[in-house]
């Protein structure tokens, strides 16, 4: 009797072993959006969700202005054969020419896709890659992982990799400052914000200027500690955000004149991230301070011509109060709609809010984890 029982349970176990199933390719989630706005030049936009470090959950969403459908998580279903999907921590997203570039920081690669379909075209391996910019037929990617210095702290300088956008090969590299972040090209020169974040409390404070022809660093402009975002306006001025030290030095926004390559001005406004559209800068700040133990969230629109704050709110109050952790910010160049994402606690799905140019909430949708970077697709 006991022998029968034993064999039965053995058989049952063998049966169980074979009926577990496999992990499916995760299907996208489609949400129809109630929006009637006409768009003639912009077909849609991609949103890159960073995903928490270690989770391998960087994902790509797409909003289609013609079908008015928001599709969450398109990469895996569009490219089922790519092992381990998009990767770990998506840090930047840009469209250039007919390709979509996603910088996947902790997977040490730049994912290159077809801009219209998001189909995988190739990838470039760059360790600890951060942000991407373009000029001519080349892409420029900043990376923390440059040569290691032989001192006890093993300080590691950062570098910029130049990538040919047709062959996906790295053609040239140049070392810059410590832990370089965002970069932009103006008049044949590449400007890079160096944060020095690994070297706390000895943050870097320079913007590196690189001559694209010779691909050498021609100047280092001292700005402020812990630099992060760097964007150019249509007049060729460069705006750089500095994160401060989280104690007594607050964050701030600085302006560099690219004709003289000197620091021109600071706007004395707290800033974590911003978006430039025309002559306006839309800013948010999530300022953590160790002394108070609090995070202060502020918003602003600045007129870049006058350098004055036009308004301290660009979203309706009810929604603005709901946002726990503003993270991504973008303005549709054609419709002037404002997009703000809420990353919440970084380990749960975020929310994307769409506002009319005067700040009224038009629609909102659930995104992936840590929605962060936008890329608008033109027809």
């Amino acid at each position, binding site marked *: 009797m006991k022998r029968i029982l034993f064999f039965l349970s053995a058989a049952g176990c063998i049966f169980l*072993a074979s009926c577990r199933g496999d992990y499916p390719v995760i299907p996208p989630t489609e949400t129809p959006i109630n929006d009637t706005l006409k768009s003639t030049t912009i077909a849609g936009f991609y949103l890159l969700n960073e995903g928490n470090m270690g989770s391998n959950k960087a994902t790509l969403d797409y909003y289609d202005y013609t079908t008015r459908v928001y599709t969450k998580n398109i990469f895996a279903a569009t490219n089922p054969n790519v092992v381990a999907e998009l990767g770990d921590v998506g840090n930047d997203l840009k469209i250039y020419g007919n390709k979509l570039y996603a910088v996947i920081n902790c997977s040490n690669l730049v994912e290159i896709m077809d801009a219209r379909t998001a189909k995988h075209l190739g990838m470039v391996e760059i360790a600890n890659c951060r942000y991407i910019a373009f000029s001519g037929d080349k892409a420029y990617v900043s990376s923390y992982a440059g040569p290691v210095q032989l001192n006890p702290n093993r300080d590691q300088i950062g570098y910029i990799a130049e990538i040919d956008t047709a062959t996906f090969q790295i053609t040239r590299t140049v070392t810059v400052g410590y832990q370089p972040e965002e970069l932009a090209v103006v008049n044949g020169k590449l400007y890079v914000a160096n944060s020095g974040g690994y070297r706390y409390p000895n943050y870097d404070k320079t913007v590196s200027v690189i001559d694209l022809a010779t691909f050498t660093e021609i100047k280092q402009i001292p700005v402020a500690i812990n630099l992060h975002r760097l964007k150019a306006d249509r007049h060729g001025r460069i705006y750089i955000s500095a994160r401060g030290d989280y104690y007594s030095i607050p964050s701030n926004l600085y302006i560099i004149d690219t004709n003289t390559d000197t620091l021109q001005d600071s706007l004395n406004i707290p800033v974590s991230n911003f978006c430039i559209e025309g002559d306006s800068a839309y800013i948010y700040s999530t300022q953590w301070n160790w002394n108070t133990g609090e995070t202060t969230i502020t918003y602003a629109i600045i007129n870049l011509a006058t350098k004055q704050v036009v308004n301290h709110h660009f979203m309706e109050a009810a929604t603005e109060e709901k946002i726990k952790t503003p993270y991504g910010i973008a303005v549709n160049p054609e419709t002037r709609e404002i997009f703000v994402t809420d990353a919440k606690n970084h380990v749960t799905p975020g929310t994307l809010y769409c506002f009319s140019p005067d700040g009224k909430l038009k629609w909102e949708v659930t995104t992936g984890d840590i929605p962060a970077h936008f890329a608008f697709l033109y027809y």
Partner: protein
Amino acid sequence: MTHLSTFKLCLFVLGGLLLQTPIVFADNAENAPDSIAKMYSIGEVEIVGAYRETEIIPPKKLDGVVLENLSCQSVADAVRYFSGVQIKDYGGVGGIKTINIRSMGTNQMGVFYDGIQLGNAQNGQIDLGRFSLDNMEAIELYNGQKSSMLQPAKDYGSAGTIYLQTKTPKFADGKRFHFGATFKTGSFGLANPALLWQQKIGRSASSSASVEYIHANGRYKFRHKRVNADGTIAYDTTAIRKNADINAIRSEISFCGTITDGEWKAHLYNYYSERGLPGYIARNLYEHHQRQWDDNFFVQSSFRKDFTSYYSLLANGKYAYDYTHYLNPDTTLQYINNTYRQQEIYLSLANSFRIFKWWEAALSTDFQWNTLASDMVDFVFPIRYTGLIALATAIKFPNIKMQAGLLSTFTHETVKRKKPAPDKQAFTPSVMATVRPWKHILFDIQFFYKRIFRMPTFNDLYYTFVGNAQLNPEYVSQYDFGLSYTYQSRTSAVTFFNVSTNLYYNDVDDKIVAVPTANPFRWQMTNLGKVKILGVDVSLKSGFQWCKHWNLDLLLNYTYQDARDLTDPNEAYYGDQIPYTPWHSGSVVGNLKYKTWNLNYSFIYTGERYNQSANIIENYVLPWYTHDLSLSKQFILKKVKLTAAAEVNNLFNQQYDVVLNYPMPGTNFKLILKAEL
């Protein structure tokens, strides 16, 4: 104290105090000469003059033949066979393994080594993977707390506890020493020799020394696979786990002895290891290079004496030193090279008073001093002073036993820079009861209520950039109702049978969680969580003996858990199952013995769960289950008892992760050779 010799009484008292359950397994002491394991079954025998401790609610227990034959490398593997337990296993021989009982979180758990708590004030986690089963006699699990009277205040201070009992020397008639050597080898490049020497000293004392060395390269294959909706394969790749090597040495020496109406024990323990941290798997990221060195040392001693038949004293003392060195040499990431040193001093005095035969009271006082030093930038060098006072009373009648306890905890901290956490004081109560409606039928109705908290760890409070010195302790209230039925017999084929079921409800408040600041690399600890857990545990334990030589032990466990995140009603995941908590889980262990042959089969099932708070498909984890099989044979060569065993684990090569992106090994095997003199 008439017909029992002093020698057998000594063993009995030691056994009774350390084992503390009425019966274990099949008693084959009277069997044929080729039966080797001699277990003394401890029945309901009253010895005049000697005091026997019994608990209100006995623990779940793994010991004896079953524990010895479980195909487990460490304590972490063994505790998976208790119901209500989840192990967070980062994979491989050297991967960290922490325990979580009834979803309350690993920091609420207490792990006791021979009655004294193992501490880790730095991060509150005890890596059970470091404790090998080689020197382990029994593992007990207490839900709520251990409910005996003569126990240190620390025993009241956790939401659930695991007690590890090391092997106490037991000498057969006439023998004065015992020597054992073990060698294990197998997958992962494992080479694992161990030596044990137990020596009788004089008439009432003995010593035990053991040394174990573990070496493994930690390499194993794992598979990454996804299928399309139509069933075709999207991708299917195999890779090898790298940088998972480990070299470790464990050395222990202990002395124990009995005195009139009491006993004492002193123990020295050291564990040194060097290991690679294989890290998480992600796209284009199949290898990490971080390394860690650890040294865990403690010296502890314990003294118990019944001064009169009314009063008993239990004194404990411990000093511990823990060293960790963490290195990240990876040039694609930030270079990190930090050391951490922790020290702990623990002193405890527990008194119990037998006012009447049915009424006892106890007063226990504990004091603890913890420090943490490190070369991290801006380190605060915290020191924590903890005082615990527990007052308890119990009534014991044949039909009903009840214990009520009140614990007062007081902490005070100092730091060298910034502000320390404010002083904390809290009272936490507990009530435990067992009702036996029919005196001669071992059917018990059990109940307990307990409220306890866990202090934020030093990392929670002070870790550079992350800690928050204003954190409150995390509280949990537990309500448990259980039924247990035991049947024992020396005559029928069923020698032992116990079935028990528990229904419980746990309420976690001010759960300490990490939330991000503006920079996702900088997180912040806050009291943000609220979790409610409803669960059912069912366990069955039975022993069969038939045809004189055949013996079967069977353990079955099943747990159902509903653990909901109720932190923020505005969030979409409000009410979702908390991460890594399966709704269904269970295990089966069967140990079949025939003369000198032993066959062990074990099965673990962990049901579907989610690896993040939102219960959405992106976070879904498939159920996993593994089958382990081991076969062993004992033989006698001259005077030496030899055991040879072979194990195959994860028999059907199931590919799974316990923790997201930390793959576990597929099929692996082990060969064990043991010699005992």
